[in-house]
């Protein structure tokens, strides 16, 4: 175990990581964001979702360094009296959770379809790729809106809030599988012609076993890079959907919801309701993006 760790530390990837200050800063920032979001219940000064603890009289309090601010509300409060800082922490939690879940969903769906298309070839390949082409002609937001709308129509209104998060994950996931599928299909086509796959066929392994045990480990490389960058996109998509009002319910606001709420008051003086969540969102997405950039370059053998 120790030697595996030593080997990893000494590997080319770890070396390039250690020598890139931007990447290390980005990784740190991401870690902080994720850590703060995970530990929100213990770190946040207030619980913004506890409707009982909200006091409308505290609404629109400016940040603490302003003359009219209060120390307990470090970044001010929003229109319902929720502490902006706590809401950012809890909201980031939701953003990250939805983002990660969507990425995992899209990854599993996309990699599965890509492997199948690449290995099976012929009609199955053509079908899956045409499906992908059709989907690519729609903007991702539109697809997410479509799925969300369908579910709202299909289900009674009381259930909406309960399952809103799941619907969100489904919508963002379905809108994002194509990039995984295409990449994996390409890699599968390359690997399929290699002789170790043919050797497995000669041995008599079944196609499913060949795809999962032989092909999957060898095509996952680029998928990791796509997933990191897709995480950033997923978080933004969730924020956009929440901003548009079709994301998470307003009682459990995410960063996007906050920005929407704050948007109304941006130019009438209560700027902090939109600006701070906006900064938090940008910081989170930027650091994830930078990490993804580094990962792509580090894993590219031609650049080493």
């Amino acid at each position, binding site marked *: 175990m120790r030697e595996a760790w030593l080997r990893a530390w000494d590997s080319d990837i770890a070396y390039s990581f250690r020598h890139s200050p931007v990447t290390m800063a980005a990784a740190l920032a991401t870690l902080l964001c994720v850590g703060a979001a995970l530990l929100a219940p213990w770190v946040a000064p207030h619980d913004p979702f506890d409707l009982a603890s909200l006091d409308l009289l505290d609404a629109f309090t400016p940040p603490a360094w302003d003359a009219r601010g209060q120390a307990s509300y470090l970044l001010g409060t929003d229109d319902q009296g929720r502490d902006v800082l706590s809401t950012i922490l809890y909201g980031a939690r939701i953003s990250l959770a939805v983002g990660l879940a969507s990425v995992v969903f899209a990854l599993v769906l996309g990699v599965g379809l890509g492997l199948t298309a690449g290995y099976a070839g012929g009609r199955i390949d053509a079908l899956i790729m045409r499906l992908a082409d059709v989907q690519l002609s729609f903007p991702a937001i539109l697809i997410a809106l479509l799925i969300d709308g369908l579910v709202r129509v299909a289900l009674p209104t009381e259930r909406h809030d309960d399952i809103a998060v799941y619907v969100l994950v489904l919508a963002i996931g379905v809108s994002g599988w194509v990039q995984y599928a295409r990449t994996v299909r390409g890699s599968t086509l390359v690997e399929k012609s*290699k*002789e170790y796959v*043919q*050797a*497995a066929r*000669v041995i*008599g*392994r079944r196609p499913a076993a060949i795809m999962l045990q032989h092909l999957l480990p060898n095509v996952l490389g680029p998928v990791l890079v796509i997933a990191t960058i897709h995480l950033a996109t997923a978080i933004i998509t969730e924020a956009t959907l929440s901003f548009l009002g079709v994301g998470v319910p307003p009682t459990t606001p995410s960063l996007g919801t906050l920005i929407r709420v704050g948007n109304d008051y941006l130019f009438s003086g209560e700027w902090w309701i939109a600006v701070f969540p906006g900064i938090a969102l940008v910081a989170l997405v930027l650091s994830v993006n930078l990490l993804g950039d580094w990962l792509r370059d580090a894993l590219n053998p031609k650049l080493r």
Partner: protein
Amino acid sequence: MSAEAALLALRDVGRDFDVSRPWLERVLERAPRRVLKAVDGLSVDIRRGETLSLVGESGCGKSTVARMIVGLHAPSRGRIEFEGVELSAARPTPDVARVRRRMQMIFQDPYASLNPRWRVERIVAEPLRAQSGDRDAIRARVAELLLQVGLTPEDGRKYPHEFSGGQRQRICIARALSTHPEFLVCDEPTSALDVSVQAQILNLMKALQQSLGLTYLFISHNLAVVAYIAGRIGVMYLGRLVELADTATLFARPQHPYTRMLLDAVPDLEMTGRSRTPVAGEVPNPLDPPSGCAFHPRCPHADARCRAERPALRRTAAGSMVACHAEEEGRLPAWAGRFSSMPRRAGMQ
């Protein structure tokens, strides 16, 4: 030689590949379907314990034959039988699966034939795991196999990229031997290796054949290698078998003009300085093979019959099988080639 006595029998085997343009383009351009006849009417028997070699240049179909035998491609025509069990039927019977376990394949590229993410132990054990699950027995068998091919049991913990080309080919051989097969199809196993490493692998294969009683089908384009390892040689050209003979007979008394051309092309390390018959032309496009005898555009002895009629394999006075009109009609001159006085080697069949 009856089909039942042979270990593997191929009867009039053919394989076509559809290389037409995609359907939509074809319809729009009104282009015809294009079919590549990679193998066209091949019949040969492989006897138990022998090493039969198929030689030829690119496009001759020898690799396709290998792949059809192990089941990677299904033949378009003809039959392939292993000890009487037909392997080429449209619906494979359970017998076929049982028989397939008795044959294995070794590939050309030692760098691509091992999964780079698997440890050597897992690679060698893969055929075993497909059959039984006893982990200790499998581990012991893997250790035994690695020793047999000249590696150590500790090598099982390593990954393929830690080995050289020759060592990787040894791993491939170990994997192929794991289920005690009787028949090994070897597709250019030493073509990607350096000369000194090739010698090691060829010696290993010969030793294993002796100790384990294996039968080899050895595909190669290198006549010198084939002279060393094979007892019988089949020469292929554009998907057809043009000559089939014992090694000594093939080198001393080649009958087919293409065989003679190939022998002339073997580099002259002895530097005897003898002049060579200049080699004419190139292998034609397999999509558009010549009419009649496929070799006639390059053959110094071609006549009208050769251009029109495809020759059949027939037995010659020397004991070999040749598909050549000139030979049949006695028009073929005697060959005073380099290896006319090739001695029979100890251990050669």
